[in-house]
Structure formats: C-alpha cells, structure tokens
C-alpha cells in the first residue's frame, strides 16, 4: 500500500475501500463537549470527521481546537481551513499547530463570503485562494519548506483535500476546475451535496475522460433533507446548489411527520446509485445539525461496518 502520510483516510482509500466521512460543526460558544458528543454519535460509522471552519461565515469555536478534541478522543479529524480569515502567515502557522497534534488531514477551502455571516462589516483576507492553499500544504509537506523558503523542522504530514462543486456555474469549466485542483496537488475531493444525480454523472464522465478520477479520490457529498422546507430552501436560497424539482416534489408529497424518513430514504438511494459511478471512491455525509442520523444512513447504505486499517 503506497501512502504518503499516516492518514487513516488515505490508507482506507489506498486499500480500495469506499471511504465514509462526515462532519461536525463546532458550537457558537466554548463548550467543547458539544463536539465530543457529536463525534461520539458518529465515530463508529465514519473513517474521518471534518470540522468546519466558521462555515457560512458565522463565528464559532475554531476548527483547529475542535480537531484537537477529536484527536484526543482517538478519532481522525479533517481540518477544514478557509483562506477568508487568515493570511499566509496564519495559515502556515495553523497548519503547523495542527501537525503538532498529528492531525493528518486538511480540507483546503476559500470559504463563504463574510456577507453571509454574523460579521458582514468585517474585512476578508483572501491572501491566497483554495487552489493555492492546496499548493501551500503540499509544498510544506513534500519540500519540507515554508512558502518563504526556509526549512520546516518536522514538516506537516497531511493528506490534502479540497471541495468541488459540480453544480455551480459555469458547468463547462467544473471539470477543468477539478483538473486545476489536481494539478495543484489535491489528493481527495469532497463534493457539494448531490441531488441532481444525472448532472453529477455527466460531471464524473467528463472527469473520467481526462483520467482525473484516477488521480484524485472523489468522495460524493450527500445531505439528507429533514423537511420539504429545507429542500426548498436549499433549492432556492443556497448559492451553487442544484436540487431538481422532482426531489422537492417527493419531499413535499409525504406528510410532514414522514418527511425526515423520506429525506433519509432519498439520501440512502442516492448513495446506492452513486456507488455505481466510476470514480466515486467514497461518501461525505453532511447531516447538518442532524448528526444522529449518520449511523442509520451508513448502515442502510451498506457501508457498515467500517474497515480496519493499520
């Protein structure tokens, strides 16, 4: 098995298993128990857990501290890191801080614009973009050097990931953008929530034609709807989200008390269909403030038990 880091996620992918990741959003306060409780619910059903980094630009407990909590529980965190809030000094510094706790996975993101959050009057940084953050981590890991050129004592050993949105516009460059991330050195991808399966299959076909699916491990992103209202909100209000009318209709077509169950059904069916797509190497289950459903989704999708790797 040829791996470059001690990451469990990398090992699972390298050994040919379908990987399963999920995520926990840190609390809007300093109670670290919130993270550990969420992680307890899902830990036996996933290989690694993303910790979001002030998602939607709403200020929360920091991703790094939450990742350290997971690490101390013996779990495998994926440190999400956005370039919105930190310049290259702070990014490199936080990468080293994470590496000092042997956090072995990072997800490189640009981050939602601060306008969506609780500090719309704040500055943003964007010293570098998400693709350049991929290059930065690879440089630090593989060359053992800072961006400034100096040697790093004990370089970070991180499996490098990024997000991809197959559904944002313009569609025709979505695979080209994936190719850019691959060229920058990304090793795994977690996609935006997939509801439009046909469009995703087209995206994957284009990725296959360029051989990208062999160069990067693509984890298909899924999010169960809790209600028809959520489906409508995601369709109409969340930028870059593609929720087909028939999915909204299916959620609306069942009584309110049955809608959570229907949301889980759709999610499980999506995973089953996505398993057949060449190049899909695993799943990223984003059960937003609904982490307790992750075990059921994983079990019903035939992804349980999780493989053991050394």
């Amino acid at each position: 098995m040829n791996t470059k880091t001690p990451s469990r996620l990398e090992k699972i992918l390298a050994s040919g298993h379908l990987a399963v990741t999920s995520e926990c959003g840190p609390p809007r306060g300093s109670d670290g128990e919130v993270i550990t409780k969420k992680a307890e619910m899902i830990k036996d059903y996933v290989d690694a857990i993303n910790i979001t980094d002030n998602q939607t630009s709403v200020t929360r407990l920091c991703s790094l501290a939450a990742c350290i909590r997971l690490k101390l529980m013996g779990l495998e965190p994926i440190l999400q890191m956005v370039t919105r809030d930190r310049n290259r000094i702070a990014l490199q510094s936080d990468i080293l801080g994470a590496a000092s706790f042997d956090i072995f996975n990072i997800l490189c993101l640009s981050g939602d614009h601060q306008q969506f959050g609780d500090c719309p009057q704040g500055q943003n940084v964007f010293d570098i973009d998400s693709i350049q953050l991929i290059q930065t981590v690879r440089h630090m890991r593989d060359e053992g050097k800072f961006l400034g050129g100096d040697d790093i004592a004990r370089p970070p050993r991180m499996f490098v990931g990024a997000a991809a949105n197959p559904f944002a516009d313009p569609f025709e460059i979505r695979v080209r953008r994936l190719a850019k991330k691959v060229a920058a050195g990304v090793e795994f991808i977690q996609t935006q929530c997939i509801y439009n399966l046909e469009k995703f299959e087209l995206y994957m076909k284009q990725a296959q034609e360029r051989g990208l699916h062999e160069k990067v491990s693509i984890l298909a992103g899924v999010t169960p709807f809790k209600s028809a209202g959520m489906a409508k909100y995601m369709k109409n209000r969340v930028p870059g989200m593609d929720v087909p009318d028939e999915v909204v209709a299916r959620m609306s077509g069942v009584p309110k008390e049955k809608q959570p169950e229907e949301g889980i059904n759709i999610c499980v069916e999506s995973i089953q269909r996505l398993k057949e797509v060449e190049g899909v190497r695993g799943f990223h289950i984003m059960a937003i403030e609904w982490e307790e459903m992750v075990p059921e989704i994983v079990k019903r999708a035939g992804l349980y038990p999780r493989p053991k790797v050394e």
Partner: protein
Amino acid sequence: MIVAERKPIEEIIGFVQNCKKILIVGCNECVTVCYAGGKKEVGILASALTMAFMKEGKELEIKEVTLERQCDPEYLEELRGFIDEYEAVISLACGAGVQFLAEKYLETPVFPGVNTLFMGVTEERGVWSERCQGCGQCILGQTAGICPISRCAKRLLNGPCGGSTKGKCEINPELDCAWQLIIERLKKLERLDDYETLIPIKDWSTERAGGPRKLVREDLQQ
C-alpha cells in the same frame, strides 16, 4: 477614473455648523465626470448649505471655486491668495485631492464633501462600477482582460468559487461573477485551455499590503 459620491448633507453641515465663512472647492477631473464634485455640484452644495443655515437663522458666506485638479500642486496654488480668509474648506475632490489640499494649507481646516468609492468606469449614464484596485502588478494578460482582484468578491485568482450561479456572484444577484466573464471571454478568444494554467500565489507587497506606495521617475525629475 476615481468614482465618488457626495456625502449626506447632514454630515457636511456637521463639519461647518459653527462657521460663518467657508470655501467649497471642486475638482474638474474624475469627480466632475461622475457628478460628485465638479463645478455644478459645488453650486448645489453651496445652495443646500445656505438654505440649511437660513432655516436655523444663521448666515453662511460661501465662496465657490473649482480647480482643474486637486492632486497637483500647481492648481492648489490658485487658492493661496484668499484661503486664509475662510474658516474652513470643504473639498469635493477624491480622498487624494482632499489630503493634498490639507497638506498644502496646514492652517485651514479641510473637510471631505464626498466619499471616495473606487477606480472604475461609466457603464452607462448614472451607473459606475469598479475595475481596478491598483495592486501594482497587473494580471489582466492572464485573465482575458477581466480583473478577478477588483471584480471577484473573494479576489480568487483561480476561480470561480462554488457560489457562482447563472453568471452572478453569490453575494449579490445583480453582480456579475468575474470568473464567468473571464471564461466567456476566453471562449470567444478560443483560449479556454488557458483557464487551466495555475495562477501562482500573488506578491501583494506592491498592493496596499506593502504600505503606502510611491512612484519616483528620476528621468522626469529636475
């Protein structure tokens, strides 16, 4: 050009409420073109202030002057002969002009009459938009002539981000996604493959990040 808009009249009144004699100085360059601080706007502001003072039973003597430029010392010299007669100056130039005037006349209070917004273009009558942030190292040659630093809300150099929807930016449905524009233009130029060239980490030291900037051309200095 530099695009500006007049400050709210209440704010301007606040600057000079205790004055009896003020000077309003317009600028014949950018702020004239964007109808914020030219000769006409100097007149409008003078009338508005006169009326506001009259309402409160106060008198305000106002002299109106519009200089060719406020960012050039030779034109600012034109104020030398009479500026001392006034208690305050309201400059309707951009922030550069206001400061340069203040620098040249240290003993007279100078207040800004406009908010300076951006370097941009006149899209159509009454509509201006940003095009440049003066980063000091132009990358337009790599981005099909469309600037992602000034026109992408995240100034992404390898965009577009996942929030680009139907050609519009996630922060405002009225705002074009700069990367959508870049991609459309690359297609027209039959250079879409250029999109895949990675734009490296930018040196921001020539931008604001490097501290206040200065250009010296020794060949032009006497």
